[in-house]
């Protein structure tokens, strides 16, 4: 770890101000990616602005037709939330299978989506459930938010404050985890919200989370699991690494989509 200025923000404004006055500042949410990166000296921010002490960034609220989750809410809090479990059980299940217990008790939804790891679970959750990402400046549709590997539309210093998930009619997330990291080799969120069917895929594509149009077409209004399984997904543009070939990932997209559809009922 290189030396940096540690700042513990006590309010949103405090955090935004600290970030804007820093030469090369970085927000610290749960730190599940940032801290290991710092320890390996792969990043050298001038300032690390800790968001943990900002009271109103964490928490889950039931807005009737949607659930709003504060950016600093941990995965464990989402996984164990009665509200989430009753309204969008697929989201609680997704959060409950991120990483390991240590990660789930430190990692946050805001940190995860701001980082946009191409194998993270939440991006698929956000896109599949048609979430809205709320920042200090604006509200952004999940469809527009994730742009490329580790890239989002967030502007420099822009702070995610919450994520709002409309309550889905049906939804389930199926994940085939990387055996080592437990990130997704392929994860698919299948959801039907307000009559729209979505299948959002994480882990597979070279450009991060995406909606699989061919799978969505196959699923149709009835979430046809057999039809999803029958889709021959192209391996073009999919990741290939020591854990899984592009062909294996392509195959798993159909399988996971099919299993998610079955689970979503």
């Amino acid at each position: 770890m290189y030396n940096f200025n540690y700042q513990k923000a006590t309010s949103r404004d405090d955090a935004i101000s600290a970030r804007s006055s820093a030469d090369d500042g970085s927000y610290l949410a749960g730190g599940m990616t940032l801290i290991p990166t710092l320890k390996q000296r792969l990043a050298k921010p001038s300032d690390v602005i800790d968001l943990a002490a900002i009271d109103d960034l964490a928490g889950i609220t039931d807005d009737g037709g949607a659930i709003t989750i504060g950016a600093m809410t941990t995965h464990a809090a989402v996984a164990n939330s009665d509200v989430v479990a009753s309204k969008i059980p697929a989201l609680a299940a997704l959060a409950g299978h991120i990483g390991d217990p240590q990660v789930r008790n430190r990692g946050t939804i805001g940190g995860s989506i701001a980082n946009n790891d191409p194998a993270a679970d939440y991006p698929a959750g956000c896109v599949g459930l048609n979430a809205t990402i709320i920042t200090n400046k604006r509200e952004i549709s999940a469809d527009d938010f994730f742009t490329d590997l580790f890239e989002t539309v967030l502007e420099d210093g822009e702070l995610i404050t919450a994520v709002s998930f409309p309550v889905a009619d049906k939804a389930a997330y199926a994940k085939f985890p990387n055996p080592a990291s437990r990130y997704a080799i392929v994860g698919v969120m299948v959801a039907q919200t307000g009559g729209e069917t979505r299948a959002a895929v994480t882990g597979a594509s070279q450009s991060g989370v995406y909606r699989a149009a061919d799978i969505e077409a196959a699923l149709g209004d009835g979430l046809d699991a057999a039809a999803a399984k029958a889709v021959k997904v192209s391996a073009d543009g999919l990741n290939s690494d020591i854990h899984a070939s592009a062909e294996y990932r392509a195959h798993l997209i159909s399988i996971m989509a099919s299993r998610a559809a079955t689970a979503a009922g």
Partner: protein
Amino acid sequence: MSETGIGAAVRRVEDKRFLTGRGKYIDDIDQRGQLYAWMLRSPHAHARINGVDTATASQAPGVVAIFTGADMAADEVGGIPCAWQIHNKDGSPMHEPPHPPLAVDKVRHVGDQVAVVIAETKAQARDAAELIAVDYDVLPAAIDMDLALADNASLVHDDVPNNLCFDWEIGDKDATEAAFAKADHVVSIDIVNNRLIPNAMEPRAAIAQYEPSNGNYTLHTTTQNPHVIRLLMGAFVLQIPEHKLRIIAPDVGGGFGSKIFHYAEEAILTWASAKVPQPIKWTAERSESFITDAHGRDHETHAELAMDKGGNFLGLRVSTKANIGAYLSTFGAAVPTYLHGTLMAGVYTTPAIYCEVKTVFTNTVPVDAYRGAGRPECTYLLERLVTKAAREIGMDPVEIRQKNMIQPDQFPYQTPVALEYDVGNYPASLDTALQASDYAGFEKRRAESESNDKRRGIGISTYIEACGIAPSAVAGALGARAGLYESAQVRVHPTGSVTVYTGSHSHGQGHETTFAQLVSESFGIPIEQVEIKHGDTGEVQFGMGTYGSRSIAVGGPAILKACNKIIDKATKIVAHILEASESDIEFKDGKFTVSGTDREMAFAEVSLAAYVPHNYPIEELEPGLDENAFYDPLNFSYPAGCHICEVEIDPETGDVDITNFTAVDDVGRVINPMIVEGQVHGGLAQGIGQALLEGCVYDDSGQLLTGSYMDYTMPRADNLPNLNVGTQSVLGASNPLEVKGVGEVGAIGSPPAVINAILDALAPLGVDDISMPATSAKVWQAIQNA
């Protein structure tokens, strides 16, 4: 018998401190005036060093000193030695290229140390290391063994042609050829034993300290064998006489073999501590562990089994390439040879065996012993081959084993590859495991799985291992440069409590409990009266340490021998005090009794008499009750057993679920059944990890692709089934405790059981081979390719 004696499931006494965070590991220790070292390591697998410029770094804040290979060479520091010399087929000795602690002219693997920065804080040392400018000429790397052996290969060591460290053989080649000539069936297999990264929970660490007033050195280091480090480093590297060098290995958090070896950092720190002269601490980062702890396994083997019409084994021919990495590590040369080739009979009566091993230098981390060390490689090969043979000739895998097994009445059994098995009952272990795993009910379970679109398979491994390493004369004849006895000192205190000093070292095995149980049994005293000390050459007599499942098999009898000397002496004291003949004194349950009388003395009364010798046979007996013993084993010990694995595979994803795992192990006499079970569990976790999860991957340029837990899959609790383990023991015949050793059986026996089960499940789909680790991706691909 004492309630805490042999056979009692005593809770581990050391766990109180481990579980309450009061263990004392090296990183918990700080010395006054302590400095910190950071190793500058090569980012290249292979490069010539044109120069190392430390000028700017030397001026960095907090820096006390920076040393390079040139500095150590100028001081005539020796190279890191190899403790075992292997000879080629033609009788010439293996190549032993120099291994300078800090690289001098070349770096030979990613992680090879180039310079050490010593500073007031670890962060300062690391900051300064980034300011060192190393002028490298990057060279092509030799990574793949076949490419490394080729004539145009880049040479890891300029004076080792074809990167061939040695070309060794064992067995009778002519007899084996003759066996193949008359065979009705020949079954062959090409097999890879995947390279593993050890991953002890505690990374390696050291603190070196030099005392200028008397010239004494103290090195705290995470080792499994402190005296071996003292001998190797003192005599061969730094020329420090043993009375001036103290090695302390306090609580050590796991080793699995990787902490046997003398590592360069130990020599660098010890040497530098006199230069500075202040204590210097170094603690490996986890990332450094991945690229500097000696790796394990990494064999490629072609083998053939010759059989007659009835499936009787006639001959076995084995040709192995073993990766030794960039340098010869301490036991690197012994692992693929005498710990591998000598086990090729397995549990079978194969009459003719020939095994040859080419050992290859590559630009990778040195490869050395890792839990099992050579024996898992051999077992995996044999048990895969035997199962394949059964399939090819249409015989049940149980029947082919039963047909070819050494029978209980054939012991001692001389194998064609040097070892003489002392005792065993392999058919019994197999039968018990078949019962325990409900082998007979398998087809019903298979049908149930298939009705759920799953594939089910069952796999058997009937293994043997040679451990309790080793009779010194035998080891010496085979090239060992050390004896392999063990030592013990049993010091009875005046009021009857006992301190035992053992040359074995505990880094998770539970010696403080198991060894205390031996003493408890011997003296009839509770283990609360016994303290086990180990790990400090300043207080323990010379010992050989812990590896090769030798602690109970070699270290145990040494303690027993010293205890018996105590009892002999105590008997003389009692005879004097009770005015009886020695031959009339009986010792039982902690009491010395004159036979046929009510005259008796408790153990503590005798010890008090020994230290307060008022009424004492002083003319013929020294006061005190304190005995030393060295025990050199008569033979290896031979644990054996049967592991049966049952898997259910999801053919859609390739996911393998181990539904049942049964291990029936013959470990000889069991001292503490709870510790034995724990050892088997741990070994099985590592064996199943090797079979399904763990695989070290280098790219062609020698960069480690599995350099963290993001990519290197350690087994976790949810990867393992509920393990069904049990022992079925035939008492050991080669040591007075009748023990065999248990530390490695799980890791040795289990991998082929897992892979055989997977292949059994996939055979109907046409899959006939899969390599370890059998990840979901690999299983799915095999199904696609079939």
